[in-house]
């Protein structure tokens, strides 16, 4: 019913004797665009998530175009200035994203990178998120994509209206929510499984055993699948795709005396948000090793916006001291119809802090040489929120930042007023710049694409 990622049937037929019962997955129908250049110079697409909204009036520069900062830098963007990144980042303001019902923070979160609205009910029905569209175009990498979150979202509740998955991740593919992974899991997934004591022979023998094991499992799943009804088949299909991806990775493993050394000491702190820089280090190193190119990073889950998180590490602009009020409450600064200016200022202070974190990642990439330039030259790092003002769960007046040159296809350092255009037109532009051949992005409630023409970036 929805497009999945592209697979070659040839991959599935490896070990043909065991896999003859394989169903033709939707994923194998070639429906998805493919990046023309994904095998050549690596380009990265990174999404950095700000829970709740970003206040339009606190982030919009007075001037537009290049050198907008000559007329002053809005408070929310001070993080860019502090790290000398104004020329490396474009500010895009006042966009809209698929109008429709509110559904609160969850529905907005599901809409941000997909530009579609989840249908009511327990199932993830949003279209593929922009990071995943790119990830599908580069299937040969050790990992198609990586989703990292620092704070698992543990939301109890009946929540019958929408899948809770919308609150735990920003990445969706083929109706599956790809959950966030903790930094240690991300580290192990990216860099783990290297055993320095293995000889080439032992490596090959082990690889053969792993492949046989996965073949066995694939076969088991197919046999089971044939006995099931449609609902249950979908669950087994998700499972099959998991087997496939792991198998693909196993097949790609090559014995080598040289492994890309993570060069990172994995020292986790139990105190939030101390692990943010560690995650940045993991991301940058994994990009250097070209382990994956599509990233989404949530410094917190959407739970931060819906539940109990206070930004006690941010100074309260009203009266000093740590912020105590929960971010979610502050973000509804207009509760009961009256705008609470204090809360709005506190909200802006948090948004400023989030931009500072983003700036640290961008700076790190800018300081990492690659080829004749830097890692940032071959990346687009996007800082975004799922709403404009979250006061009324609005998906209008949305703003975002795009850092990097994406292989020379972007011209950063500008303020681009979106003038109420579609958020999807930004995602479409990024996909085009990445060489992904697709005509449209997103799905409006009436079923039409959310954008068919890209915004000039």
């Amino acid at each position, binding site marked *: 019913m929805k497009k999945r990622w592209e697979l070659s049937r040839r991959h599935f037929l490896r070990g043909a004797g065991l896999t003859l019962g394989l169903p033709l997955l939707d994923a194998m129908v070639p429906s998805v665009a493919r990046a023309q250049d994904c095998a050549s110079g690596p380009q990265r697409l990174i999404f950095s998530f700000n829970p709740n909204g970003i206040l339009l009036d606190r982030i919009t520069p007075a001037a537009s175009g290049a050198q907008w900062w000559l007329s002053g830098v809005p408070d929310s963007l001070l993080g860019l200035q502090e790290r000398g990144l104004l020329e490396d980042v474009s500010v895009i303001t006042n966009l809209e994203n698929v109008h429709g019902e509110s559904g609160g923070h969850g529905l907005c979160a599901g809409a941000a990178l997909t530009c579609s609205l989840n249908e009511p009910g*327990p199932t993830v029905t949003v279209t593929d998120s922009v990071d995943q569209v790119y990830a599908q175009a580069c299937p040969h990498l050790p990992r198609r994509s990586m989703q990292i979150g620092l704070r698992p979202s543990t939301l109890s509740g*009946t929540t019958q209206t929408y899948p809770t998955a919308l609150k735990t991740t920003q990445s969706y593919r083929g109706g599956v929510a790809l959950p966030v*992974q903790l930094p240690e899991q991300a580290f192990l997934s990216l860099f783990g499984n290297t055993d320095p004591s293995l000889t080439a022979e032992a490596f090959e023998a082990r690889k053969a*055993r792993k492949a046989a094991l996965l073949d066995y499992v694939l076969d*088991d799943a197919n046999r089971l699948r044939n006995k099931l009804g449609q609902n249950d088949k979908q669950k087994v299909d998700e499972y099959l795709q998991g087997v496939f991806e792991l198998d693909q990775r196993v097949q790609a493993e090559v014995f080598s005396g040289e492994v890309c050394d993570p060069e990172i000491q994995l020292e986790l702190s139990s105190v939030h948000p101390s692990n943010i820089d560690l995650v940045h280090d993991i991301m940058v190193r994994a990009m250097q090793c070209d382990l994956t190119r599509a990233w989404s990073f949530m410094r917190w889950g959407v739970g931060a916006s819906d539940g109990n998180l206070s930004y006690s590490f941010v100074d309260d602009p009203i009266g000093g001291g740590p912020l105590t009020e929960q971010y979610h409450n502050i973000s509804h600064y207009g509760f*009961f119809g009256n705008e609470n200016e204090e809360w709005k200022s506190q909200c802006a202070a948090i948004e400023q802090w989030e931009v500072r974190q983003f700036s640290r990642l961008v700076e790190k990439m800018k300081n990492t040489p690659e080829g004749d330039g830097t890692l940032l030259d071959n990346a687009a790092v996007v800082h975004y929120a799922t709403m404009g003002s979250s006061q009324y769960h609005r998906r209008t007046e949305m703003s975002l930042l795009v850092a990097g040159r994406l292989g020379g296809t972007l011209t950063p350092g500008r303020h681009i007023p979106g003038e109420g255009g579609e958020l999807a037109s930004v995602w479409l532009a990024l996909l085009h710049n990445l060489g992904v051949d697709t005509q449209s992005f997103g799905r409006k409630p009436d079923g039409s694409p959310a954008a068919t023409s890209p915004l000039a970036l």
Partner: protein
Amino acid sequence: MYRHLFVAALVLGAGCDGVVRQAPLDHVLDTSGPGDGRSELVCDDEPDQDPGVVTLRRLSRVELDNTLSSLVGTEHSTASLFPDDAIGYGFDNIGTFQSISPVVFEAYYDSAETSVVDVLGAPAALLEQRYESELLQAYLPNGFEVGLVYQDTSLVYPVTSYTPSPDTFVFKDATYRVRFNAAGVVQNMLLPPKVSIRFGTQPAVYVDVSSDATFADYSIDVEVDAEVGQLEIGLFNGFTATNFMPLYQPLTSCTDLNGAPDECANNGTGDQCVADLCRIKTACVSDADCPGTQHCGTVPNHCPPGRGCCVDPGNQTRLMAVDWFQVEELGTPPPPNPLRDAVVECDPETLGAPQCARQVFSAFGTQAWRRPLTGEELDRLLALAELAWDQGEEFSVGVDLGLEAILLSPNFMFRVELDADPGSGESHPLSDYELASRLSYFLWSGPPDEALLSLAEAGTLGSDEVLNAQIDRMLASPRAQELHRNFGGQWLFVRELDHVAPSSEIFPDFDESLRAAMKSELGEFFASFQNQDRDLRELFTTTEFYLNDRLAQHYGVEAVGSEKSVPISVETTGRVGILGMSGVHTLTSAADHTSVTKRGKWILGQFFCDEPPPPPPDVEGLAPNVDPTAPTRVQLAQHRENPTCAGCHLYMDPLGLSLEHFDAVGRYRSLDENGHPADDTAELPDGRVLDGIAELGPALAEDPEVQRCVVEQMLTYAVGRGFVTKDTCGIEALRTAWADGSYRYSALVRAIVLSPYFRTRRGTPSNGGTP
């Protein structure tokens, strides 16, 4: 489901519809009933209890941990590998909501590997490795043959031939004994052939080989520091040359720079080397410096260029033949792994590897898949093991591969239930094995035990009598503690208390011990219903609370003299039932103030099974002006003047207001945040006025709608699907059965297990029949 307390509102037609909810339930609620505004549920005597479509469930994190622990026979947690389970209908075990993304699958893979390799792993034997000369051959320099005595002096070989062992060992901190069998001869030399032995980067040790041309065993013990590395065997062997200075000086004639005896092969440098080497010889630069027939011999790499000693002419040779090497680790062998022995009970030596492996797979597989494996399934597992054996691996490696496959199979990860015809909407009984799993995952959050599997094998589990006996047995088992932990922990939000974060500025007293005490109170309270088989209506009416000293202090009552929560009657505090518990107040509050809406929403969701939808979009401009300094009750009333808001707030607000006497961390208060007297009067939409939780609690306890919701919550948890309007009468039948059992906890469990919801299932009709 709909609300009974508030049925009057239904007549008004101002339902809390939001954008998702369907129209209210006219067909179950007789709105044309008596004129008191309350409608009655009208049901058949034997209502349809459609099992509905239960989507294939994968093991939740808790279930996986329990299942693995049960399989491997020890506490074993891999849950931290997994992303959080998705929650739907309030619980984490609902198949429709659970997805298996590649991340989850990879976690399963790691989990299977850890379980088999780390927990069930065969104990690593003491290292013992033997190399025959034929094998060593492959690792020697080109043309060098071990096992032959070299007679051909025209060949020139390096002084030393290092022979790395074919394997990389992971050495332990241990003593290793290296033994070998060799014979040596010398010609024109005083020095015997030598063997050098080096572990990793440690200094080498040397063993002289006797020069009597007779094979003999040699042995040396070496202390090793743990490190990864190769064992390196060096042969000081077969050297001959005329222009090199042969190393036949007696050891005593030569010392290294530190004064220790040395052959000067390595340690001597420069002039000191030459001086030492030549103590009994004449130092020379060229042959002209030497007397008689002697010529000037040098040692390249050891003495300075052009410096040497005068030596006799002729070939010097020391030769060695080696038959085998053996390295073995000394010490006591590691103890056997009893966990593995319980899984691998047979001996491959006596039974034969295939037969033994088959037995192992059959027994372990039956436990893991909660049903017997077919012969064909066993054949395929055996084929995997044979692949490993064909690679030359040990028995255990093949068995491990099969065990991993069993754990990675969808038959393990999913709780498989099959329909003979998945396209038919006709319900049919579950198989006995499927029923055994439903029972065990409902009551234990874990796999069926031997007793359940035996009953399933005998085909007798399905009768009422056997089921009743099993319910009693299983509820009495310690494993049943999982039921109140996982069901109650989610239904009543006990788990959520881990995440609440009251403002430390406003509530400096809120600390971890208070959090733990709140959690313990809610948890112990609910556990008591199961463990004492209490009347569940007391959930709302009890005045007995579970306090420790910390919570007693918080509640302003006398210390209970215990750090553990104990049941104490606290009738004077205004606290009644679960709505009087500070944990509930805290988790339904904002960080620094109470929230009437949040509290009302929680009560509606958890006890009326009717959580309001999120506010409609873009309500900006619709919200009327509200005076933020007015008493909460007045603000809410102003808010409700907008009909869009009133639809839901009409229901939420009175419920939330009844908790007004408790602040955001559950302390009793007489003034609210704005300094107005706290007023917990609740005016219900039907016109009734309740005086706080003291009156709301008993009203909830006796309300059939609330009771149906309690049934629905446990039923949802038990069968793993959501329940909708058309199930109302079916649930009402369960409620009646539960009421006939005096509302006991066990009566509720029994009503559910004995119902068609639990014992039958059906497929999805291809004509698109609804779940």
